[in-house]
């Protein structure tokens, strides 16, 4: 186990491994995405209250889940990078931030599209919308800090500190914005007891959630490969990788 971790953290080994893993993640992602969209758009019944427009949930809810999940991944790998100085964790944290920001933006945008027919407004200063918006600001702050510092390793460690500060703050921010009266429907999946969502709608939702997870795994590995090449551009193995003739 330990030797595997040590091997994993060596950039050339990870670069090869990620390259081999990407198709194994990308194809399931596509399969889950297609089946999720099929079940969501054709098989799932029309909602008796919300009509067809509830179907945006199949993108909106998984995107919102991903926005928090990726922040957790980013903050934890940032913490690992700070404590054990592991290059790979820095790379994962740096390549996760833009993906997380995109998912947060997607959740906000689909939420606005959903809110217009349902609540009659694009935007409401409701607790969960507001905390999602603040999460987007946190992501953008981390991306901005990452790009403002020229030395990549210093940049990663600085954004790791910010990410950890953010992770303490996310629950505080979330519960402080709950002080407003909420327009948003309460969570229907994580409720204790039976979920208040019908199985025919739950299945496509979960399929989409799994597809989004695979999508994240695929894209983060792709970004990490690029990031590694950029960071290690002066090393020998990258040189031989790009111009194999150097080796002979």
């Amino acid at each position: 186990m330990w030797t595997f971790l040590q091997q994993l953290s060596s950039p050339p080994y990870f670069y090869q491994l990620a390259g081999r893993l990407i198709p194994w993640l990308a194809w399931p992602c596509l399969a889950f995405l297609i089946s999720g969209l099929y079940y969501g758009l054709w098989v799932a019944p029309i909602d008796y209250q919300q009509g067809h427009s509830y179907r945006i949930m199949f993108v909106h809810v998984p995107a919102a889940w991903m926005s928090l999940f990726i922040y957790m991944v980013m903050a934890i790998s940032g913490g690992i990078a700070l404590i054990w100085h592991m290059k790979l964790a820095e790379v994962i944290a740096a390549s996760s931030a833009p993906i997380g920001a995109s998912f947060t933006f997607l959740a906000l945008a689909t939420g606005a599209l959903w809110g217009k027919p349902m609540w009659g407004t694009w935007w409401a200063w409701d607790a969960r919308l507001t905390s999602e918006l603040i999460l987007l600001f946190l992501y953008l702050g981390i991306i901005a800090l990452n790009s403002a510092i020229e030395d990549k390793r210093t940049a990663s460690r600085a954004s790791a500190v910010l990410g950890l500060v953010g992770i303490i703050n996310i629950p505080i921010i979330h519960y402080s914005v709950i002080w407003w009266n909420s327009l948003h429907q309460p969570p229907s999946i994580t409720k204790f007891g039976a979920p208040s969502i019908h199985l025919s709608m739950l299945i496509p939702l979960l399929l989409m959630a799994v597809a989004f997870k695979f999508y994240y795994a695929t894209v983060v590995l792709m970004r990490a490969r690029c990031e590694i090449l950029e960071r290690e551009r002066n090393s020998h193995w990258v040189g031989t990788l790009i111009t194999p003739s150097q080796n002979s």
Partner: protein
Amino acid sequence: MPHSLIPFLTLLKRDLTLAYRHRGEIANPLLFFIMTITLFPLGISAEAQLLQVIAPGVIWVAALLAALLSLETLFRSDFEDGSLEQMALTPHSLAGLILAKIIAHWIISGLPLILLAPFLSRLLFLPDNAVPTLILTLVLGTPILSLVGAIGVALTVGLRQGGILLSLLVLPLYIPILIFAANAVNVATADLPIAGQLYFLAALLTLSLTLSPFATAAALRISLS
């Protein structure tokens, strides 16, 4: 006096003396605070009823922005002349020294805001019964602004466009303080209990007082490396 307190008090005294010698720099964020508040009646309306409603939010937003402006100077000059590196090299705990700097910064920038607040609340026609609450929230809240802001300053101190980046990093973290403090003042105008909000602010103050110096020290070591 215990030995570990001596460097702490020395640094506190040094920072306060330095600030006293450059009195103009202290005055600028305060002037900014007053002027931002003056802009709101001019921009919205001079109607007492309307101003009374927005007063808690306006005063608190102005306080956040003034804190951001003054934060930039927290480590800047020490970073530029190298004394910050010397502090990091001393055998004393860097977190303790940073706490001294943060406290000095709060005395320079936060305390005057609290003293000014009663006069500014008159400008915005805040009812008399809410003024003590406003002061209480400022007493509890402005130290958090300095403490949390210090982490952001430590991360951006070596950067060229640090100022604008600092606001991007720190403002989202200020949101809970703004919510609880402005809400407490709003509620106080209606003579409703405010204990809950004040407890939250006190809890946030305790949390940031205990954790922020360590996070700031870690961030400074990264910026200095």
